[in-house]
């Protein structure tokens, strides 16, 4: 919510001709992608913005860049066709990177084996709180891929790709509970979002 408010004010400062909703309380027409859990950094956030005047993607990017508060940056702006499907409905998967430290004296090889074993399990049941109670969910089919890197400082970079859509998703918290026994999470970052058209969008380093 805080980021959304900050973006709306950025758009206002930039003086972009944003379309407002009609009704008692006109709101700027913005639609956001998957919500970012609290405490997770991100370099892959998306929002759709409706303007009343056609501007080039470069103009919009420039206007936003000049008005963003510290800590936010605009990476790319694309022009959408009118009536483009909603951003949220287009997302198929999300990439996260966890930076982990070890709670155990395990070597890199042992760590790699541990993750290999986790990946090979046929089921990864977790209990999720729902408004009506608790629910058992199998995370395994939602986990698409992972990659481990061992950093020079001893920390482990654990990259995952998880499903996103009507079939569910894996939240960073869910991984947190799977990893808690052996690892301490130092940082979580959303690194990329993949869309239905097959386009994969991540920060160009």
């Amino acid at each position, binding site marked *: 919510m805080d980021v959304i408010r900050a973006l*709306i*004010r950025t758009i*206002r400062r930039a003086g972009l001709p944003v379309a407002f909703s009609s009704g008692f309380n006109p709101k700027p027409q913005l639609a956001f992608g998957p919500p970012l859990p609290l405490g997770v950094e991100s370099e892959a956030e998306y929002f759709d913005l409706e303007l009343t005047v056609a501007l080039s993607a470069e103009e919009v990017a420039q206007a936003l860049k000049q008005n963003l*508060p510290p800590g936010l940056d605009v990476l790319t702006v694309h022009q959408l066709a009118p009536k483009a499907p909603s951003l949220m409905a287009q997302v198929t998967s999300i990439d996260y990177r966890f930076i982990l430290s070890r709670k155990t004296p395990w070597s890199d090889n042992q760590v790699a084996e541990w993750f290999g074993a986790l990946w090979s399990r046929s089921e990864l049941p977790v209990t999720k709180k729902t408004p009506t109670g608790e629910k058992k969910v199998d995370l395994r089919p939602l986990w698409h891929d992972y990659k481990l890197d061992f950093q020079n400082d001893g920390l482990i970079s654990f990259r995952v790709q998880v499903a996103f859509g009507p079939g569910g998703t894996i939240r960073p918290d869910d991984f947190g509970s799977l990893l808690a026994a052996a690892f301490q999470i130092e940082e979580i970052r959303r690194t990329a979002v993949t869309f239905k058209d097959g386009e994969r969008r991540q920060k160009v380093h």
Partner: protein
Amino acid sequence: MSTTDQWKQEGTKINNYEKILARVEKPARYTGGELNAVIKPWTNVRLRVVLAFPDLYEIGFSHLGLRLLYQRINDDPAYLAERVYAPAPDMERELRAAQLPLFSLETRHPLDRFDVVGFTLQYELSYTNILNMLNLAGIPLKREERGEAHPLIIGGGPGSYNPEPLAAFFDLFFLGEGEEAILEILAIIADGKEKGKSRQEIKEALLKVEGVYLPEYYTVAYGEEGKIAAVHPTPPAPPVVRKRVLADFSTAYLPDKDLVPWLEPVHDRAMVELFRGCTRGCRFCQAGMIYRPVRERSTAVLMEYLKKIIAQTGYEEVSLTSLSSADYSKIQELLSSLTDCFSAQKVKFSLPSLRIDSFSPELAACFQSGRKGGLTFAPEAGTERLRRVINKNLTDEEILATTREAFAAGWQRLKLYFMIGLPTETERDLEGIVTLAREILSIGRHLHGPKAGRVQVTVSVSTFVPKPHTPFQWRPQISLAETERRQNFLKERLVGRGLQFSWHDPSLSQLEGVLSRGDRRLGQTLVKAWELGCTFDSWPDRFRWDLWQEAFAATGLKVEEYTRARAYDEILPWDHLSAGLKKSYLHKEDQWAEEGRITPDCRPRQNCSTCGVCSTLNVRPQLAGGEKD
């Protein structure tokens, strides 16, 4: 070794702090980084100031005065100003467990590395938070325990018109409008430090700044029953410290930019003061007395500022503040300019409150975005007689007519704000509250016809607390038991469909009353209460009356010593501090109150109530529309 080098060596501490931030509720309370926050290099300035608000970020951020001073000091390349707010209890626990000090938001320096720590004294129930923040920063609470290397602890805001309960903890209080004086104060401190002067020499040099009060230069002798026998000033301190007013408010400082928060504060909007002071003369109102005389900004100045600040911040709402904004003499012109200029951008405007006698549906509609929610009116007292006593001269018919207009214009929910315990109040006045509320409800039901069921009248009642520098400063405050009795009286009668009753915790008002007319002896009570664990006393869920009572008992003081009536010839703890009001004026107003005699609004100049402010402080009222005679 420079401070910066020392600081770098504390890398582990910073690392721990980062981990704490990841654990606490709402870390954005402590991380700063807002748009327009100013981060200056630590070593390139003459003096470093941290502005401290003794309540949570969400509350403190919403305070205009602190935002104004922050930009003002930072506009000057010679100084650096950072901010700190009271850490929430979870953050306090983490800091204490990790043995970390309280840090500033901008550069995360511990408070004791600054040259000046400036607290804003907005309400008495924030005082234990001040002690807690000093303690968390590792700064000795008592002035006499602090040494050359410690920051100077200064305070300003309405609390400094009677800061006596805090006298032992502060080096300096500032009375009045600070936006010019703060730079004079900082210049003297910077000069003194550069010339190698001692803390004491610097403080003595500060005495020549108008509005500066150094409590250590005044000795208080107590007589019987805790009454003050005498207050002795030590030269060169003046016998009476007078508040500072700006030479010309119409051209007073307005910042080029304003902070825009990440975390949503209680008032998430830009603010601008239409005017300072108030001409109404309500006898219970401290703000109406201490911020005199009335001085308005021109619509041109306001419009220019608002255009700049809205473009610069992107705020979707602006609050047009003052003590009675609808009294602004060019309010209609201002509103039409605002509508012309900002309606396309969907910027909303709000007034902090609307007076019953200046309400019109057209005026209210300008501030009502979209759906008609609730409207709040403040009759303050239940009968015409009692309203004359407090000089809020409204007839029942005026109140009913206004509510009729509001209901007719579509509002369904009205909130009525009253005080109980006002001087001369009887059961009849309480009954008056009930009668008024019921009549308003039936008007609303009648006008809303088929939707009568949606009409709601809320009666909100607070307890009158006599405040220093008001005509009621000599009056008694009703006791805890009496407050409960009067609240119950209303509770039993304000029941039924469409009526709601809300009230304040009576013990909170008792403490507020003690501290607001308190003396220096209360310093030890404050320390004791804080030691017992009292902080955030203004938060009803955190307030511990039992601990406060323990603190009073332990320090040998009684609540009744402070809530009692005072004689006109008694020396009051704040008599050596002046808001420019003549004591004879306050005295006369109190007598007129007893007689139910009205003092007219002093806006037309022939109605001058000779309160003494203009002559004492050598200022004049300023109206945007010129003088109305």
